[in-house]
């Protein structure tokens, strides 16, 4: 379908595929993925039944608790960034989305639902309902701000993820995360399929940039066995946010650390784990590949670069999912490392080199699910002349709308959804700070900010924290 769009004084025709709408005015899943005409109710119910047993042991308790104990008080809605950003549309409230699954749960898996039907909110889903749910679960970034607000500690974000798991099990997951994400990651070492030579070229380029800009020689060790620190980055940073990697390289050299990066020759070098967003099975496949790769290199520490969900996966989930004897290394974030080095006096910084007002965006995966709130703040206060808080912040910060892989999902006009809902709230938050730079430590957030700044005409730029620290280094 073609649509006309005004660009300045001219008008151009942009080709935008418009798939049939099944939930709202957008589509996240392609027709090939969603397979609208294919009956899927029976398979869905069968899989849902499986995930309500001990087979789904990691999340069974919070999943069933949230399905059963919600009182429909609606508190979660007022905490939800997409709901607020959409102008408070009912279909985007967390409890509405969870209820789409809860109705099915009650009808097919509870006695009260079987006996009393709609009186207790039970409903037998139609094929249309299943298709709508498949799309609805891709309107939530699982930022879990709603879980912070729920008086009972129930987690609508978790419900969204559980519903995604059911769909993934019957073959419905965004190809950006599944085929082009996890499968590419496991086959080629990184989701964007960066070959060894490509990675080496990028690192060589970064080396030259640092030498040219700062006049210092740096090393970019790759695949070094037994180094103290193995730094793993989001592969997207090597391609789209090279300043972040450049900053990390410069800092590691500045403190003369015993460190290394790794390449596809050792296995997976992309620190992302898209399985976290939609499938326990794929999540663990990627996690095992990470562990196998890390063990080959035998570092003392794995350092997670600027990638939020990777920190959640490696620093937290891995402790529960991989036995200690199989992971003889520690996991630390680059922020913790830099924060420590600043406090130890190993990094000499000049705030005057970053004179512009800077604010910090707490990524959901670094903050609410990661616990890294203060480190980046201490770092930015040490590296920037004018640090300003965004409000609300820390555990109450709003999701930017790039989380859960949304930042790399552009099909149909999903981009517009990201900008007009989550993006609207975040743009307003950013404007209110008066900052010229929004610093963040997550590649998904950066990708969202790249678009957001343009879309909402914000007079600011985004930057990685490592980039700002490197810029402030005193030689």
């Amino acid at each position, binding site marked *: 379908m073609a649509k006309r769009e005004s660009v300045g004084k001219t008008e151009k025709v942009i080709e935008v595929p418009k798939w049939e709408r099944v939930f709202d005015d957008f589509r996240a899943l392609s027709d090939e993925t969603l397979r609208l005409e294919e009956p899927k109710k029976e398979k869905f119910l069968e899989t849902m039944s499986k995930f309500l047993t001990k087979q789904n042991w990691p999340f069974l308790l919070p999943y069933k608790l949230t399905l059963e104990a919600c009182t429909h008080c609606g508190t979660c*809605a007022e905490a939800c960034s997409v709901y607020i950003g959409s102008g408070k549309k009912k279909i985007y409230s967390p409890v509405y989305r969870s209820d789409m699954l809860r109705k099915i749960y009650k009808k097919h898996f509870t006695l009260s639902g079987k006996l009393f039907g709609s009186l207790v909110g039970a409903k037998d889903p139609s094929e249309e309902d299943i298709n709508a749910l498949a799309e609805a679960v891709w309107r939530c970034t699982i930022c879990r701000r709603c879980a912070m607000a729920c008086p009972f500690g129930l987690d609508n974000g978790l419900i969204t993820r559980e519903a995604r798991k059911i769909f993934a099990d019957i073959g419905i997951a965004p190809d950006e995360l599944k085929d082009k994400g996890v499968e590419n990651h496991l086959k080629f070492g990184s989701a964007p399929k960066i070959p060894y030579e490509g990675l080496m070229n990028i690192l060589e380029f970064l080396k030259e940039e640092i030498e040219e800009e700062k006049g210092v020689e740096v090393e970019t060790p790759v695949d070094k066995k037994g180094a103290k620190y193995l730094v793993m980055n989001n592969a997207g940073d090597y391609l789209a946010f090279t300043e972040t990697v450049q900053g990390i390289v410069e800092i590691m050299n500045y403190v003369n650390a015993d460190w290394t990066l790794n390449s596809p020759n050792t296995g997976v070098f992309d620190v992302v784990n898209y399985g976290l967003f939609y499938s326990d099975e794929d999540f663990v496949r990627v996690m095992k590949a990470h562990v196998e790769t890390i063990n080959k290199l035998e570092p003392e520490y794995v350092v997670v670069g600027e990638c939020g969900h990777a920190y959640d996966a490696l620093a937290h989930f891995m402790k529960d999912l991989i036995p200690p004897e199989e992971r003889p290394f520690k996991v630390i974030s680059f922020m913790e490392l830099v924060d420590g080095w600043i406090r130890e006096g190993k990094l000499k910084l000049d705030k005057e080199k970053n004179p512009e007002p800077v604010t910090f965006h707490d990524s959901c995966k670094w903050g609410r699910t990661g616990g890294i709130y203060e480190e980046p703040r201490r770092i930015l206060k040490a590296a920037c002349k004018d640090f300003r808080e965004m409000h609300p912040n820390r555990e109450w910060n709003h999701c930017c709308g790039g989380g859960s892989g949304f930042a790399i999902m552009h099909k149909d006009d999903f981009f517009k959804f990201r900008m007009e809902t989550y993006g609207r709230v975040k743009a307003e938050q950013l404007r209110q700070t008066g900052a010229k730079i929004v610093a963040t430590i997550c590649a998904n957030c950066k990708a969202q900010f790249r678009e957001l700044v343009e879309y909402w005409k914000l007079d600011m730029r985004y930057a990685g924290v490592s980039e700002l620290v490197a810029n402030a280094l005193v030689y």
Partner: protein
Amino acid sequence: MVGELAWFIGNILPYVTLAVFFIVLVYNFLKWVVMPRPLVWSLFPAKRSTFDILLTIGKRIFTLPGPRKVDKTIWVLAWLFHIGLIVSLLLHAKYVLMPTFPAEYYLGSIAGVAAAIGTVGFIIRRIDIAKDKVDSTFADYFALILLIVTLSLGAYLRLGGVVEHETMWAWVQGVLTLNPVQPPEHPLFLIHILLAQIYMMYLPFKTLVHPIAILFGQKIILDERHIYPR
């Protein structure tokens, strides 16, 4: 006939009510206790010890920080509703231990009115949020409607002096000491205690799932994750 009905509602049904209430409540609690939870996906700031978790759960139950942060209306209504209801129930329970004292009349009335405002507020809110948040089910309304009728009757019985406190006290004590005496036979009183018992039997199936959820849900949210020293 009225006497037999009163005897059933006042002296037989309470034991059925208590049995249903406790059996279902304990079942609902144990169901979550025995369910494995080997993986932690809590939210930060997480707590580092069981004591801290319990302390924070306690604080959260009484201060409701989530609703206070994002939705003041429900925060105020929840306060009125729960405190009003708890005080009303405690004053009822007190009949077992001691006779009434003068201030109780006013305290009970205030508590009843607070609970009634909270209940009506919740009903209005449910109707309101159906427009832009979520639809409530009949089951959601049922408990509130049952409660508002019970509360209204209770308030009328109290303010109107329909039933003598001493008679009622003797009846409650009789039930609890297994020495039943004939309950007051005023029809409104019988309806009041019948509805209250239906409400109590209904609670553990639906409404009381949420206080149980607070213990498990909030614990999940607050549980310690693997935190490195920093």
